[in-house]
């Protein structure tokens, strides 16, 4: 009881007073003092796996106090030279009231020489953010790439920022291939192409799957990806060219709208690891009743390739579909 009394009479008021005082304390606001040196910062704007042939986008910001000088040049050095199309933007962007990015030219178009891409400013500016687009070259496949961003000001200062290393995916990607029943229906995972009947007859060993559309009166068949070696009942109306006889394993998937393939709002990415961990040992050799935004995991008969084939859209009227594919080459095959 004594303890309670002490607590009530002395500690509690002290605590309350402390809290009151702390709450009332007024911290004076002081304007932050900017650093008087050339500064820079980088963010990577692209997400997901880095796929050969695709871009990695960065935004490179640099600034100096206006009374100290202006920007002279900016450059990016990649550890592996970018493929054709790699460039450093010569526009600085601002976002207008409608949320759109509007470019203001601030420099000469970028010049790429070997691993280095650079721009030289041609307007007096002390702060700019430039976008850098690195097109991933074939030689970077499965390797790591890192970047050094640097800027110069006219008072002789230089500053740099390192980004990476980033792992470049082993997989390949192809988007928006048109397939149609009875015409461009023969899909080659090895070539990542679609062949018509004549093309399939010329390359029978490369045909892994056949696209079929069939409106069955009794059962739901519709859009299907069927292995040439599958039971004939799953290839209605298909007369396979001679030699087209591979058995490809396929497994139906729904709700896997990979961002790279679907290019829609879903932030889902299929990466090399997904293919490595895939187990299709028990999978069938056909998949029927495929819908838009559905897909299949596939593995070629020789086990060399694993792929994810995504249906961007389907058209029952024209018996056709638009498909996209990510393909992974298994190591050691």
């Amino acid at each position, binding site marked *: 009881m004594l303890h309670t009394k002490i607590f009530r009479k002395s500690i509690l008021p002290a605590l309350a007073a402390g809290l009151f005082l702390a709450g009332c304390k007024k911290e004076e606001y002081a304007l932050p003092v900017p650093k008087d040196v050339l500064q820079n910062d980088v963010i990577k704007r692209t997400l997901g796996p880095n796929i050969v042939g695709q871009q990695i986008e960065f935004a490179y910001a640099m600034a100096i106090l206006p009374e100290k000088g202006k920007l002279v040049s900016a450059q990016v050095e990649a550890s592996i030279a970018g493929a054709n199309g790699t460039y450093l933007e010569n526009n600085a962007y601002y976002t207008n009231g409608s949320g759109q990015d509007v470019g203001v030219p601030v420099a000469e178009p970028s010049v790429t020489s070997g691993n280095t891409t650079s721009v030289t400013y041609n307007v007096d500016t002390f702060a700019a953010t430039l976008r850098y687009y690195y097109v991933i070259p074939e030689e970077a496949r499965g390797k790591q790439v890192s970047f050094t961003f640097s800027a110069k000001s006219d008072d002789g200062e230089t500053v740099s920022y390192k980004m990476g290393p980033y792992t470049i995916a082993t997989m390949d990607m192809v988007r928006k291939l048109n397939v149609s029943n009875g015409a461009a229906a023969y899909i080659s995972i090895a070539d990542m192409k679609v062949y018509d009947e004549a093309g399939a007859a010329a390359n029978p060993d490369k045909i892994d799957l056949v696209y079929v559309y069939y409106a069955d009166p*009794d*059962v*739901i068949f519709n859009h299907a990806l069927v292995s040439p070696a599958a039971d004939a*009942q799953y290839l209605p109306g298909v007369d396979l060219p001679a030699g087209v006889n591979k058995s490809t394993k396929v*497994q139906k*998937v*729904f709700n896997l709208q990979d961002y790279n393939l679907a290019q829609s709002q879903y932030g889902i990415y299929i990466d090399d690891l997904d293919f490595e961990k895939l187990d299709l040992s*028990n999978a069938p050799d056909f998949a*029927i009743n495929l819908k838009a935004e*559905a897909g299949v995991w596939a593995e070629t008969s020789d086990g060399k390739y694993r792929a994810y084939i995504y249906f961007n859209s389907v058209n029952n009227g024209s018996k056709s579909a638009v498909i996209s594919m990510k393909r992974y080459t298994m190591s050691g095959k």
Partner: protein
Amino acid sequence: MKTYIITIAVSLLALAGCKKDYPVDEDGLLITTRAECYVSNFELLGTDFVTVRNGAAVIDTVAQTINVEVLYGTDLKNLYPQFTLVTDAKLDPKITGKVDFSDLDHPKIYTVVSGNRKVRKPYTVYITVQPR
């Protein structure tokens, strides 16, 4: 006085919390007094987690059978069965992933175990494929 009452109440509550009123089974699930033992609903999903049933499953709780017709072209080797059971019951064997239903001549048998773990009823799952 108030402090004492609160202290006693908290101690009592703590003791009550520790008291083991109900036994648990080998899975750590509560063994209750319920003796009901049946399947109330059955679902079958494909690898894309979309149903492969062609119509509702027919559950006979007397004969202890589940008859389900699956869509033409269903991959019977890779299916996810889902059982809805009466309150407190559990299933044996447990479903841990994909199940191979392709051997139609040897239908799978799942046993429902009642809440008091004293009643066991085996249910046979008969699958037929929609004819074309």
